[in-house]
């Protein structure tokens, strides 16, 4: 049995191929006790596939998956885990409390139902049928089912997809409450904001590879900038000289600058007397960020960063 300081989950050099598509490419990751890990990535990055291998739903082509020092899908592993699947829906005409009571029976040391209802903010909804719940309430019910067995590890696959801002915040409260009780959480998301808000550590997946991992600040530093776009009469090389710690690209007749401190950098540009037309400053999309992280040709520095963080 793993002791408290051994990792709960270790994924070592796992690859998985669906047909021609390489879904996972030599992935390694581990989850420590009392740790909230966010698996961050775009749709199709391999998040759900990774979780599939952890749950034993999928067999890996190569590499090794150990969960609580058992093979994935082992009953002892399942017993210490709670899972919220991305695609799951619930039978419509079952009441919340009935659904929870049923799942509670699956685990030898399940939580008292009141505690679960409290944690998942469902106390007032317990006698409602599933079909009358809102999207957020349904997600919280699925969450409640994931935590009902007093698990040491909770896996949440895209728990907040499709929720509005309020519902998402409520959900976050639930996850934080869970983490506060000492459980490890692995959640997948494609919102950096969400990963940042909840996790102790972020693992960034792109095209089946781990492209970055680290504490949120490190990842945010990499991904958390803004995109500054403008048309100008100067070349990107000139800009690069002015702003050496940024990345500069040509986008058609625009110049795009990724900046972690856009105000300072813009000031530098204006001070240098560079004229800008059609200036926009926008949040950087994760896609852009991953592009940025996974294109070592653009910046050797970023490749070095990955090495450092890993």
């Amino acid at each position, binding site marked *: *049995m793993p002791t408290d300081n051994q990792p709960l989950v270790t994924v070592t050099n796992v690859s998985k191929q669906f047909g021609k598509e390489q879904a996972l490419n030599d992935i390694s990751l581990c989850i420590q006790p009392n740790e909230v890990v966010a698996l961050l990535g775009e749709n199709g990055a391999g998040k*759900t*596939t990774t979780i*599939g291998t952890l*749950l*034993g*739903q*999928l*067999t890996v082509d190569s590499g090794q998956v150990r969960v*609580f020092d058992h093979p994935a899908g082992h*009953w*002892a*592993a*399942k*017993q*210490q*885990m709670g*899972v919220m*699947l991305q*695609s*799951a*829906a*619930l*039978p419509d*005409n*079952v009441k919340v409390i*009935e*659904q929870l*009571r*049923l*799942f509670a*029976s*699956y*685990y*030898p*040391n399940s939580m008292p139902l009141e505690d679960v209802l409290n944690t998942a903010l469902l106390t007032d909804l317990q006698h409602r049928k599933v079909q009358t719940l809102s999207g957020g309430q349904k997600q919280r019910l699925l969450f409640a*089912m994931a935590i009902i*067995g*007093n*698990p*040491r590890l909770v896996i949440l696959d895209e728990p907040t997809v499709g929720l509005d801002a309020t519902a998402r915040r409520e959900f976050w409260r639930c996850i934080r409450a869970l983490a506060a*009780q*000492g*459980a490890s959480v692995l959640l997948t998301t494609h919102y950096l904001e969400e990963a940042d808000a909840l996790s102790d550590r972020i693992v960034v997946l792109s095209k089946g590879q781990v492209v970055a991992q680290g504490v949120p600040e490190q990842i945010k530093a990499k991904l958390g900038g803004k995109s500054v776009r403008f048309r100008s009469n100067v070349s990107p090389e000139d800009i690069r000289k002015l702003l050496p710690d940024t990345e500069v690209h040509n986008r058609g007749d625009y110049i795009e600058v990724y900046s972690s401190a856009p105000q300072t950098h813009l000031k530098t540009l204006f001070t240098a007397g560079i004229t800008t037309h059609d200036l926009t400053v926008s949040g950087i999309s994760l896609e852009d960020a991953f592009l940025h992280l996974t294109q070592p040709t653009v910046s050797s520095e970023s490749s070095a960063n990955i090495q450092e963080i890993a």
Partner: protein
Amino acid sequence: MNTSQPSPLSLFQRWDILRLETQTELTKTLRTPGFVIPSLAFPVMFYVFFGLLFNAMGGQPGHGAKYMMATYAVFGAIGPALFSFGADVATDKDKGILSLKRVSPMPISSYFAARIITAMLFALVIILSLFALGAAFGSVAMTRGQWIATLIIVLFGTLPFCAIGLFIGLSVSAKAAPAVVNLIYLPMAFLSGLWVPIQLFPSTLELAANIFPAYHLAQLALAIQGNDLGAPWYLHAGALAAFTVVFLGLSVKRFNAIDNRH
């Protein structure tokens, strides 16, 4: 938080899971009057029309009603089995409920066992209703042993249909499943002589009925009252066992395929 070590499920826990699964399954089903009413009412209604009115048209008192009671009991009992597995499993599969159960520590056998029990409870209600009707209005009289044997055979005779339903449920989408089940259920019921005595069929059709498990179950049920066509019981029982094994095997294959499709 969780300080206790994992431990295999005790027999009591397994029983508890089965009990709750069954309870949930039943509640779910009972809250779907669109399923409950037709599956209870159809066999009963058909029996009243064909079994009891046929009976009133002459012949030995209670004879037609007795014959039809057995065949409509089979008809009524295999319906819930096919639908509970065919349509409901397809829904659970499509909704991801099946996957959720799979990744939870519950033994998945409990899920299927609960469905079998639910289907059988429905079958039980249908069979007993037909018994009551036959006895009250069709002058059906059988020995206690015959009543019990009919009940038990038809009840456990639903197993092959659970297997067939399961295969359908795992093979087609939730939307298509009810149609596929009906496409198999209704023609099979007719061609197996569940609605109209098989003796009235041309002999080629009578021979062709051998390919339907419902025919074999009906013959077993009729053998109890001595109204079968005369083939030995073990052939019918063997055919039913074979159907069960084949469709269970096919279902296991499909079941494993489903999990790998993520």
